[in-house]
């Protein structure tokens, strides 16, 4: 995606939201929440966790908006804040040892949900719930780093440079992680889509 075509809140809106103007806060919140939720969902691979962290992230971003440097790309700043909050959540979950058992249970449930998905175009031929279950399960099977790279580079369509800046790794590392993630996803989708066919291609 061309960064210039990416939807960015106007500077006036950002300033209004930063200064606490109710209308600006409302408009900024409604405009940004879907994107922030998607990022959280992608990084965490868990809808309930993503909803919770997205709400925290929005409040955190609103609180920090006054300190945002307009010389820095807004999306890079926002994505980094969201990423760090998601990583914090994952660390906390790991520390509580909930992640392992919770993910296993969730994965079993998702596997049951994915029992009879069809193939090809997801929106047209699969029920929304089934598509989301496969999406969630596929993302959950990636490592956290692979997931971060895949979400930012392939799903959010950021440039390699932007991803490397956001994750504080080299562009070469981004390419390597992306290759691993794509390769792993091929196998994951082959297992989850019946017939091992995606869009007419045999996996």
């Amino acid at each position, binding site marked *: 995606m061309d960064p210039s075509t990416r939807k960015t809140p106007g500077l006036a809106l950002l300033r209004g939201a930063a200064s606490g103007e109710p209308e600006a806060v409302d408009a900024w919140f*409604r405009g940004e*929440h879907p994107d922030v939720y998607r990022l959280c969902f992608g990084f965490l691979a868990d*809808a309930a966790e993503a909803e919770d962290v997205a709400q925290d992230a929005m409040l955190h971003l*609103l609180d920090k908006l*006054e300190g945002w440097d307009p010389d820095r790309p807004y999306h890079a700043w926002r994505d980094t804040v969201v990423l760090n909050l998601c990583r914090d959540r994952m660390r906390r979950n790991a520390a509580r040892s909930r992640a392992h058992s919770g993910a296993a249970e969730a994965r079993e449930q998702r596997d049951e949900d994915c029992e009879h998905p069809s193939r090809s175009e*997801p929106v047209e031929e699969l029920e929304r719930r089934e*598509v989301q279950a496969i*999406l969630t399960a596929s993302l959950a099977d990636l490592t956290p780093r692979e997931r971060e790279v895949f979400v930012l580079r392939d799903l959010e369509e950021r440039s390699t440079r932007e991803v490397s800046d956001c994750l504080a790794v080299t562009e070469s590392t981004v390419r390597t992680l992306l290759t691993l993630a794509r390769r792993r996803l091929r196998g994951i*989708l082959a297992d989850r*889509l019946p017939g091992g066919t995606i869009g007419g291609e045999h996996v």
Partner: protein
Amino acid sequence: MSERERFQAGRFEDDELPIDELRAAWRGARAPEPADDLADGDAVTRASVEWMRGAWRDLELPPVRVPDRAPVLQPTFGGPAWVAAAITAAAAGFLFVAWFAARERTGIAQPRERVATEDGTEADASEEGSGERAQPELVSVGANNIEWRSGSVTLVLVTSSS
């Protein structure tokens, strides 16, 4: 015939291997960067990623819960917090020095001098109408406030806790 051609033609004995050339080639070798452009990938990988993108676009979003009111923002001095802290500290320092100088000059908070009266008892020297009691007196210094008193007038300076 170059060494490479001789080697490819199998005209080397074991102890004649062009080891230096091989080492140089080894050191100079660079692994190709993995392609991150999806168009460079194979058809199945492209299809997998496109499937994920389709599902991503169709992701069910939760309802937006806009906070009832905007968070209360801390008043600022129009600059970073350290500027406000520095100004506050400088003001506090100046006032302390001023108070200390006044204290040295007037002896406020010093034990009052006792003088002998005509009847043989002691009395407070300041009771003899010296007029020096109009000087302000530092009552308390806290982490966030300083209080002076002069007669019936009290001055309290409170700094921002942030």
